[in-house]
């Protein structure tokens, strides 16, 4: 996790909020550093994490996690982390018929209607432990990323339904959190992606939007981060609070600064 981002979000692993949906989105840049941040943040906060990693392999997250101070292998072995490795499982699902329904079953089907097997997997993974002792703080579902599901043949409505079911179970029933990454395709007319992004934006409590700079590539400022706090369930006359920072990604951390205040410029 990045301490500077924790300060901006006004949160620490000890005081993590519960029952929240956080939406990460990136436009014209790579927002995966936010995924690494939240993964290490919730592991350090002693939460049980179910990570649906569709776009990269386990060792990628593990190596970056080690730079940020968490070990995914240890977390997986002791049961804190349930990791669904999309790329590796897709090969198994696609080439060999599976006996039981697999969370990525829709890869084999011509017209998969919904993501129910995936939802069942998440529900099973974040089931509360039966022995009464709360070993972990709260369940967390992390998805990287939802736009891939659109590329794999699911409609935007199916993905929104999946998130809705997960919210009902994880956020409301079990007082946990959900963090999901969606790419913003910008001016390319990806209508399904826009439906997904708009639908999720309305449901989220916190939106973190990483954007590339409008002026193009810069070596010292890699992009701009917009943070938007929302209260979706209670319409208020108060405006949602929004902050914008620019950032530079380094080897083991990300530094944030106000717009135009990059250390390279001052």
């Amino acid at each position, binding site marked *: 996790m990045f301490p500077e981002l924790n300060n901006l979000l006004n949160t620490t692993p000890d005081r993590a909020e519960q029952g929240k949906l956080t939406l990460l989105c990136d436009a014209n840049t790579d927002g995966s550093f936010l995924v690494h941040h939240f993964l290490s943040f919730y592991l350090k906060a002693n939460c049980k994490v179910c990570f649906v990693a569709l776009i990269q392999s386990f060792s990628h997250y593990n*190596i970056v996690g*080690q730079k940020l101070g968490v070990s995914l292998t240890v977390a997986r072995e002791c049961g804190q982390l349930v990791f669904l490795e999309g*790329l*590796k499982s897709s090969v198994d699902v696609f080439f060999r018929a599976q006996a039981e329904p697999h969370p990525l079953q829709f890869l084999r089907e011509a017209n998969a209607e919904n993501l129910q097997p995936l939802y069942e997997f998440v529900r099973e993974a974040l089931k509360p432990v039966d022995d009464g002792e709360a070993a972990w703080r709260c369940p967390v579902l992390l998805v990287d990323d939802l736009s*891939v599901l659109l*590329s*794999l*043949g699911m409609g935007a409505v199916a993905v929104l339904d999946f998130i809705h079911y997960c919210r009902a179970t994880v956020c409301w029933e079990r007082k946990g959190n959900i963090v999901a990454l969606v790419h913003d395709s910008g001016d390319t007319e990806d209508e399904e992606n826009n439906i997904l992004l708009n639908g999720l934006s309305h449901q989220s409590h916190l939106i973190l939007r990483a954007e590339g700079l409008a002026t193009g590539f810069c070596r010292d400022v890699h992009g701009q981060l917009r943070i938007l706090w929302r209260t979706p369930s209670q319409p208020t006359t108060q405006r949602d609070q929004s902050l914008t920072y620019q950032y530079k990604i380094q080897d083991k951390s990300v530094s944030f600064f106000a717009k135009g205040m990059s250390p390279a410029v001052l």
Partner: protein
Amino acid sequence: MAAVATCGTGAGSTGSVVAAGSKNHVTSFQRRGPRASGSDSSYSRLVSIAGTRPSVRNGQLLVSTGLPALDQLLGGGLAVGTVLLIEEDKYNIYSSLLFKYFLAEGIINGHTLLVASAKEDPADILQELPAPLLDDNFKKDFDEEACNHKTAESNIKMKIAWRYQLLPKMEAGPVSSSRFGHYYDASKKMPQELIEASKWHGFFFPEKSSSTLNIEPCSLTHGYIKLLQFIQNIIYEEGFDGSNPQKKQKNILRIGIQNLGSPLWGDDICCTENGNSHSLTKFLYVLRGLLRTSLSACMITMPTHLIQNKAIISRVTNLSDTVVGLESFIGSERETNPLYKDYHGLIHIRQIPRLNNLIYDVSDVKDLAFKLKRKLFTIEGWRGRSFPNLKI
């Protein structure tokens, strides 16, 4: 090399980064192999595969794309287990040349090749590979060219603003002792004995299209399903993923797929806007899954300028690791523009992956042009405008 030195210790953060990061799937090798203690020896075996080297930044195992200048722009080379997508230029002239360089590099290094095409028979493609340049022949020509440039350059130097002198020079000449990345002569053909000595598998779609499918029809087109099965078969049979107990593979599989997405593969995304919009993206996803779990690297050329639905292009970009776009000047108004007179086209590096890392190596020079001059394909940073073109 630093990577090899840390392998022996195995302890400490850098050691584990290198050992695990030499490729994503090395960890699966270590878990699956019967000899659990084989981690060090298997890693040193990997490092000693011909034609590969660990990345300076994170120990990732890299192979050369066949163009040392392109390797430099991609941060050292193409990472094993990843996909390099080349967006074809309009008439598929330079992208097929890059494709051939990639395959030729595989033959020179002794890698196994898998060539897939729906347009040309792979055997014919291999006959037309460029010949490698031997160091002494090249040096003669290079010195000649350098002499011609030298007089012109010394005059220009006085006029150019000092800032441009600091721009980096792309690797333009052969490093005599390098085993990674070779130079090719586009005017000569690869010697027949080298081609025959190499191990290659060809997938020519018109020949395979009639055989039956043993997988239930999902939304992938027939051609893509057959290609995926073919690739998976080769990977398993020859042991590139370490799961076959009889085969201990110590080599890289280079997969080259030509004109993916074109109508010849049975896909209609280049013909209509409402075509089968998930076939190609599903194919790329499963292909990447296969690559991540095996010792292979893939180059795909795709006619993205023909794809009608622009949303598919952005999805394809997100599903690929490295994306390079070629834009040739042939037939465009730039062909006669004096600013571009020395060059044949532009190269756009659209995406570079951040593998096992938060950051990546990105070149500071963003305007890149290429030219195919006499025998060599060179890439240079381009500063057209009001300054004469310096070879930067």
